[in-house]
C-alpha cells in the first residue's frame, strides 16, 4: 500500500489527530498530533490491511524553532512503510510513549531523551542510555555548548590557532 493511501486511512479514522501531510518532498510523511500518537500507532499496528508490526526507527530531530520525533514504520507482511512525525515545542518537548505499542521503542526513546531531552510520558525506564548518568546537557541539540571538562578531565583540547 502506498504511503498516501495510509495517510488517507489515518485521516478518515482520526481526523483530529492529523495535522498535515507532506506528499511532495523526497519522503512522504504525515504529522500527527502528539496526544493521539499512541492511538494512531495502535491502529496502524493492529489494522489487518496495514499491520505495521515493526518500528524500524525512531529519531529525534532538532530544528532551530521546533523539535520533531520521526517514526519509521514497516510491515513485514505487506511490505510497505510509512513515516510519521510529531512536532513538539523546544521548551517543553513532551509526548506519550509508544513502548506500549512496540517494545522496540524502548531504547530508541531513551536515546532520544538522552540526546535531545525529549520526555516520553509513561516510558517504563526513561534515563540516559549512552551518556553517563551525571552528564549535563543534551548534546545533539543545536544550541548545545560542549562543557570544558567532565569530572576533572578536559573535554575540549583545542590549541591556539588550530580550529
Amino acid at each position: 500500500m502506498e504511503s498516501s493511501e495510509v495517510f488517507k486511512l489515518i485521516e478518515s479514522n482520526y481526523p483530529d489527530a492529523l495535522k498535515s501531510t507532506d506528499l511532495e518532498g523526497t519522503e512522504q510523511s504525515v504529522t500527527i498530533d502528539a496526544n493521539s500518537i499512541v492511538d494512531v500507532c495502535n491502529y496502524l499496528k493492529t489494522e489487518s490491511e496495514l499491520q505495521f508490526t515493526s518500528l524500524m526507527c525512531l529519531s529525534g530531530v532538532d530544528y532551530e524553532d521546533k523539535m520533531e520525533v520521526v517514526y519509521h514504520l514497516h510491515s513485514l507482511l505487506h511490505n510497505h512503510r510509512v513515516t510519521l512525525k510529531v512536532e513538539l515545542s523546544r521548551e517543553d518537548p513532551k509526548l506519550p510513549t509508544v513502548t506500549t505499542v512496540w517494545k522496540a521503542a524502548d531504547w530508541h526513546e531513551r536515546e532520544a531523551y538522552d540526546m535531545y531531552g525529549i520526555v516520553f510520558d509513561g516510558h517504563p525506564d526513561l534515563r540516559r542510555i549512552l551518556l553517563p548518568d551525571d552528564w549535563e546537557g543534551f548534546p545533539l541539540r543545536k544550541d548545545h555548548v560542549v562543557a570544558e571538562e567532565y569530572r576533572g578531565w578536559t573535554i575540549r583540547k583545542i590549541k591556539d590557532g588550530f580550529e
Partner: protein
Amino acid sequence: MSIIENKYRDNVIITSVDKFMNWARLSSLWPITFGIACCAIEMMATAASRYDQDRLGIIPRPSPRQADMMIVAGTVTFKMASRIKRLYEQMPEPKYVIAMGCCATSGGPYWQHGYHVMKGVDQVIPVDVYVPGCPPRPESLLEGFIKLQDKIRRETIATTKAA
C-alpha cells in the same frame, strides 16, 4: 616497582639480577583481554594465526590480577575512563600500558567534535608505548610489543641515580 626495587645501589650483582629479571618480564608479557573498539579486532588478529603474538610469549589473560600489561585498544570515552583506571589499579606491579591506535593516543578522529571522547588515555593512566594508526596494523602492534620489551630491558632495581 615491586618488593626489591630501589633498595640497593648499582653494582655487578645487581646488574646481572637486573638482566635476569628483565629477561623474565619482557619474555612473558600477558595482556589483559580487553578490547574497546575497532583496534580490538586488530588486537585479536595479532593473537590469531597469521601474526601469532604467542611467538613472543604473549598470551591474553582474562583477569587483570594475572596480567602484566594492558593494551588500550580503542576509543576511551568518559563513561569508560573510570573503569580503565580501576582495571589498571587492579593489575599487579610491574605493569605496562600500550595505547593502541590514535583514539587511545589522542582522541584520533574524534579529537575535535567528540564531546564524549577522552583525548588520550594518558589523562587517566600512564602510558608506556604509543602505537599510532587507525587502526594500527598487527605488525605495528607487534612493533609496539618489541618497543615495550626494549623499555623493560633498560629497567633496573638499583637506586635511581640522581639524574
